[in-house]
């Protein structure tokens, strides 16, 4: 469904991605792991349309997504939950969610969208008139995921959803992601929390210095000693 | 150091000015002398604005204030009998003093705030002068009788030459390089110890001194005008326009821009008198958006294009 071929991306003179190729199939949960600065966020940003790649192709459901402006990418069914959430702090939970359904594909399904989000995150229903900036980090993350869901995406991309969030809420969010996936939405997840990500995902890629270093089924990647050493700490290796 | 290309330009321009010094000897008509005078005054005005914009990276939208202050004091003193050169020096000193008093705090403002702050400042001065001195300033009959255009002409030449030399010296000096650094990236320059504020104030002082001198020249040249007239924003805009057309931050840019502007304006004034400001406004906008480096940028682009075409 999502096919990325030989993608090169750069910020000014700094090359961030080199020849990246990967794919996300319908109904899959795919994780993207890697150290800080590897280019994971850049990859998501490029797919979402905020950054134009220097070379390579991004194909989504057969169409070329490469030079499309971000709001049109959302129209096509690809929604990004950006790093740091990037919510509209001066607006309420409800307004943020409502804006999530701005795209034409989602505009007439707002009511259904709200129901779905509140079913996944019951906390938000009670807080829907509250200003978003008054919420905790975990609740804000829920709003961010909800906002992206309101766009009725076929592919949901998330950039470090667990960053800075209490573990209990991380578990809740990941559970919600599993449920979203069960309903048919593909998920492409960039995560530092390798354990949680690989438990949830079907497949995974590892990005290092702008290139794909390894890939495979999530369970296999979890067992890979290099991955364990690099991302799960010394204890993890001995437990293998 | 000052780029080799620019050094050549500096010498070329100074040479041209030397040649122009002989113009009055050829006995031309007054209107030709007036025309060249206007170009020379414009060169000075444009170069003065260029110093702060091009070398210190700040947009001064109240530049006319310094032009006006120079004119005001110079005129007042000269009419009282002070020799014109001295009067002009006093005018320039007033302009510079005012700039430094306001400039030190004002330069703490980042780009936009400095621009609108100077805009407000210019308007404050214009309105104040307009209220305090509403009557037209005219020269006494004796002075009018003794009016020599050639005196004004040579002063204008000297001033234009001085402005070019000032910019050349600035660009080539350590101070100038420091300013370039600030213009490119203020924070990085600060971090590397460039002493931004001091450099900016130097640029401001030089810029406003030149503007003040130009104002004094204006006061010496015109027989009668409203004292608030030289404080009007269109003088600032003229300086902006000429500098942008030619190329901000270059030595030759303001000179080219001034020549082009005055020549074009004369031509347009003959046929399209009412629309020349519209045309220049449109030209300015086009340049800001499409060719921010002005003629100099265009020149470099053409040279590069020709280079590529040259058979190997």
């Amino acid at each position, binding site marked *: 469904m999502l096919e990325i071929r030989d993608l090169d991306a750069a910020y000014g003179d700094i090359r961030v991605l080199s020849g990246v190729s990967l794919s996300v199939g319908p109904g899959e949960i795919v994780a993207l792991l890697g150290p800080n600065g590897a280019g994971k966020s850049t990859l998501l940003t490029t797919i979402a349309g905020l950054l134009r790649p220097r070379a390579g192709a991004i194909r989504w459901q057969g169409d070329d997504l490469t030079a499309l402006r971000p709001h049109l990418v959302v129209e096509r069914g690809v929604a990004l939950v950006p790093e740091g959430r990037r919510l509209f702090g001066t607006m309420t939970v409800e307004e943020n969610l409502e804006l999530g359904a701005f795209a034409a594909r989602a505009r007439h399904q707002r009511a259904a969208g709200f129901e779905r989000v509140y079913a996944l995150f019951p906390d938000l229903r009670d807080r829907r008139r509250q200003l978003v900036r008054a919420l905790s980090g975990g609740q804000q993350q829920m709003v961010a995921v909800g906002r992206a869901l309101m766009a009725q995406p076929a592919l949901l991309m998330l950039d470090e959803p667990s960053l800075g969030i209490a573990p209990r809420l991380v578990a809740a969010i990941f559970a919600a992601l599993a449920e979203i996936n069960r309903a048919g939405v593909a998920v492409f997840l960039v995560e530092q929390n390798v354990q949680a990500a690989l438990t949830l995902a079907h497949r995974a890629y590892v990005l290092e210095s702008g290139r794909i270093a390894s890939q495979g089924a999530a369970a296999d990647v979890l067992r890979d000693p290099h991955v364990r050493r690099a991302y799960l700490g010394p204890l993890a290796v001995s437990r293998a | 150091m000052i780029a080799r290309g620019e050094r050549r330009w500096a010498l070329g321009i100074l040479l041209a000015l030397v040649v122009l010094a002989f113009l009055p000897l050829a006995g031309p008509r007054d209107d030709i002398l007036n025309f060249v005078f206007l170009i020379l005054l414009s060169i000075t005005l444009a170069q003065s604005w260029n110093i702060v914009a091009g070398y210190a990276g700040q947009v001064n939208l109240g530049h006319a204030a310094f032009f006006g202050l120079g004119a005001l004091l110079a005129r007042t003193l000269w009419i009282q009998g002070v020799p014109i050169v001295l009067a002009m020096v006093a005018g320039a000193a007033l302009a510079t003093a005012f700039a430094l008093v306001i400039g030190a705090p004002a330069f*703490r403002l980042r780009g936009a705030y400095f621009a609108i702050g100077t805009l407000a400042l210019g308007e404050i001065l214009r309105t104040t002068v307009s209220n305090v001195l509403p009557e037209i300033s005219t020269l006494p009959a004796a002075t009018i009788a003794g009016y020599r255009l050639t005196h004004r002409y040579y002063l204008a030449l000297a001033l234009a030459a001085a402005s070019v030399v000032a910019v050349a010296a600035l660009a080539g000096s350590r101070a100038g390089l420091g300013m370039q650094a600030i213009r490119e990236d203020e924070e990085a320059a600060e971090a590397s110890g460039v002493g931004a504020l001091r450099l900016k104030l130097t640029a401001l002082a030089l810029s406003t001194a030149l503007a003040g001198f130009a104002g004094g020249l204006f006061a010496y040249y015109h027989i009668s005008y409203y004292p608030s007239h030289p404080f009007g924003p269109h003088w600032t805009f003229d300086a902006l326009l000429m500098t942008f057309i030619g190329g901000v931050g270059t030595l030759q840019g303001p000179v080219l821009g001034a020549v082009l502007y005055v020549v074009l304006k004369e031509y347009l004034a003959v046929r399209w008198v009412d629309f020349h400001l519209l045309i220049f406004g449109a030209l300015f906008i086009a340049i800001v958006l499409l060719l921010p480096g002005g003629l100099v940028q265009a020149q470099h682009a053409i040279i590069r294009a020709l280079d590529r075409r040259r058979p190997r």
Partner: protein
Amino acid sequence: MSVLAQQLLLGLLIGGLYGLAAAGLSLVFGVMKVLDVAHGELIMLGGYAAFFAVAFLGLDPFGSLAVVIPVSLLFGAVLYLGLFAFVVRADEETRVKNSLLIGFGLALAFHALAVRLWTADERSIITPYGGSVLMVGDLAIPLVRLLSLLLAFLLIGGLHLLLARWRWGKAIRATAEDWQAALLTGIDVRRAYLLAFALGTGLAGAAGTLVSIAYSISPAIGLEWTLKALIVVVLAGLGSMIGTFVGGLVLGVAEAASAAAFGGAYREIVGLVIFVLVLIARPKGLFGR
């Protein structure tokens, strides 16, 4: 005492128009970081449009708003598409600088055009009830100015509602807060810019109409009103239309107070001096976000 109160009242009445003038500038700057220093010229043009709408179409002076506002909205859209759409292609810092330069040039061009078309004379729209005055105790409230204030308030209120309830109003607010997040949410940010700029121009046109009715217009008022708007925006900060309106009222009253204290000739200057002093005292900017 009542003379002072009268002065302050008059200051309040014009303050509402300052607020309206600032609202358009604030909206545009807040949303797309374009500082249109030609805003005052748009007000001036709006005033002339109203003047001629009344003169040639025989409209009621306040009724001319029904013509001037749509025309201004359209003009704003055209101005955006033809000019400022290109300015917003650059990053924020360049945008601000370019909009200042271009706005400055535009202001002078519009001014020259106005002088050419309509001469430098002052004009005012005469209303049949022009001289009427409402007496409240010792205070004489000029009816026309009171109506202008009320209309200004209504327009600001309307804008506030538009931004709060209208789908695109919310999109505009979202874009103002975080344009990248807005894009990721599916909002066509360029269209939000277009709408915001058109609205800003519409507000300018309305302000110009009210100025033309309650006071007078001439080509020279452009720069004056740009500065008033800038002062209010800098003092009141961005983000709240109501806050901007109140800021305008404050400026009006402050001007009146200092005119009473120092004499009328310096009324204009006081606001500007306060402006420069405030700018200098808070160098990191008052556009606190």
